[in-house]
């Protein structure tokens, strides 16, 4: 019986240690953002990777989500005779909730996994040790550009997702359900307020930090994973990073929604 | 590290004294490029040079390349000790014309 308690205790302590490590890690990365010389080249590369190359899936998922949402809202509102409010409902759902969350999920799938794996492999090949021994801070040179790139790209991707989603709703409303285009857009404008947009921006900003922080952190500490090494360890931390980012993101989404609604 | 230039026949002689390394090789570079820019051939005098690192040698290689392109010459005179070993290690003794003393150059 005592071994069970011991295990529980040490697992709990392990979690706390991990939280501490991650906290210090984020602190070091933020310091790295403000250190000179800053890795501009890497920043641009990362914005291209995180932002520009995520565009296709953002456009596609935004479009389809908006279309599905419109179909759903139409079906729900038609019984209340309130289909003229569909535009606003679709827009508000996307801007407040689906835009930030879906963008975050797409980015986690694409960028979170790739970044975690990349950082984990760098760790396994002693590239961080090499940088440290060359008096180049890995936080400044490798991590900080990625953090900044995420903070710049992900809110922008969210905004694009929002636009495309509303457009998807428009397409369904006007071409499938014979609603008036101008009426649709009018309800959108009437319903959406600055606090909705603020929620979208705040959420996407928080999600950006969360996603890149967890992805890099899990990869950076891959050598501390017990019981595995090499390729298996890289695979394991990547999976953990994706799952942890998704769940933390949804949790933060809930908190943000309660505070900002 | 210090350096100065004197004239010998139609060459400018660049005397290097002390140690040429990362901290000062760019000064040598500016001087060397300026001399070549003026269309003068160069003899680099190693007699009072105690140490030269690869940034210094890279500077001389760049100089040699520019010299060759402009039909000028670049010689290294009186290489000895550690600088000579560096030249041999990097196999630059086959690229540069090495002479024992500045006065050995007659034309």
């Amino acid at each position, binding site marked *: 019986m005592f071994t069970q308690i011991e295990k529980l205790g040490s697992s709990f302590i392990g979690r706390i240690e991990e939280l501490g490590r991650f906290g210090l890690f984020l602190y070091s990365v933020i310091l790295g953002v403000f250190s000179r010389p800053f890795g501009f080249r890497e920043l641009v590369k990362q914005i291209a990777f995180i932002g520009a190359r995520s565009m296709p899936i953002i456009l596609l998922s935004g479009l389809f989500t908006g279309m599905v949402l419109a179909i759903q809202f139409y079906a729900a509102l038609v019984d209340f005779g309130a289909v003229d409010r569909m535009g606003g409902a679709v827009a508000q759902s996307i801007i407040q909730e689906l835009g930030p969350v879906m963008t975050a999920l797409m980015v986690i799938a694409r960028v979170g996994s790739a970044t975690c794996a990349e950082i984990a492999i*760098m760790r396994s090949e002693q590239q961080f*040790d*090499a*940088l440290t*021994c060359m*008096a180049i801070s890995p936080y400044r040179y490798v991590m900080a550009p990625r953090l900044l790139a995420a903070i710049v790209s992900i809110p922008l991707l969210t905004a694009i997702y929002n636009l495309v989603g509303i457009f998807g709703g428009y397409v369904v409303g006007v071409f499938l359900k014979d609603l008036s285009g101008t009426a649709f857009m009018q309800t959108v404008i009437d319903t959406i307020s600055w606090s909705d947009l603020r929620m979208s921006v705040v959420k996407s900003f928080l999600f950006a930090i969360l996603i890149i922080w967890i992805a890099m952190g899990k990869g950076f500490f891959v050598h501390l994973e017990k019981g595995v090494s090499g390729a298996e360890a890289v695979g394991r931390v990547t999976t953990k990073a994706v799952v942890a980012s998704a769940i933390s993101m949804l949790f933060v989404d809930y908190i943000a929604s309660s505070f900002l609604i | 590290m210090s350096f100065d230039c004197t004239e010998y026949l139609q060459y400018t002689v660049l005397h290097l004294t002390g140690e040429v390394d990362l901290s000062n090789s760019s000064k040598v570079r500016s001087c060397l490029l300026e001399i070549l820019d003026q269309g003068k051939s160069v003899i680099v005098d190693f007699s009072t040079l105690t140490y030269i690192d690869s940034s210094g040698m*890279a500077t001389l290689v760049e100089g040699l390349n520019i010299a060759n392109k402009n039909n000028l010459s670049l010689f290294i005179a009186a290489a000895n000790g550690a600088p000579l070993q560096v030249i041999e290690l*990097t196999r630059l003794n086959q690229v540069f014309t090495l002479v024992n003393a500045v006065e050995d150059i007659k034309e």
Partner: protein
Amino acid sequence: MTQKTAKTNTKSLIEVNQLDSAYGDRQVLNDINLSVNEGEILVIMGGSGSGKSTLLKNMLGLMPPSAGEILFDGLNICDANRSQLSKLRRSMGVAFQGGALLSSMSVGDNIKLPLRQHTDLDENTISIMSRLKLELMNLADYEDLMPSELSGGMLKRAGLARAVIMDPKILFFDEPSAGLDPVTSVELDQLILQLRTAMNMTIIVVTHELESAFTIADRIAVLFDGELVITGTVDEIKACTDSRVINLINRTPRDIQLDADQYLSRLTKGAE
């Protein structure tokens, strides 16, 4: 376990004093005392599990010791501040086992990295310097390739080129010969000797290859199970009477006594 140090009258550049190192509860190094003289080639030898990688990590400041100190020219790296450590590191080069090149840039850019980060040298100078080093390593044609396109041996040499690009005073080399064919290994040994002579580099090599060690070392430090068994010249090592050292030199397999009954029961454990 007497430690015999060769008599030298040159300056001691690196000193390791009473070093203990542990991973959590597991003690890996015990009371290591070592000094490295300026201009010498010191080889740290030991089998797997002897603690030599841990010793290297401690000396590079990549992990803190649990006790003891490591001095570089009088500076204790364990409590040096960031700028002191940074300055020291810029005069040191480290060649890692797999090369440890950054995978996102070409071989050439990798080698130029320290120069671009720490100096204001002109790009032309940097370019020629990196090519000089690549030529030295026989990697001249590989400048524009990515690390993923290189073989293990080439990666190692590229890592060495990067380690020496700034003509450091101190070079650390982790397992130079591991995974190399005998010819390349000999060439690398010669290169190490030339670097020391031409650049007056102090070189610390961690290896388990005997041939290499005997060829290049001024002194050898032998580690066994986290303890420094002997430090001495090649001749002193060969004359050492400690059985572990003799076994290491003669490459005798460890004699594991066999208990027939236990052996049989191990083989047949869990059988019906």
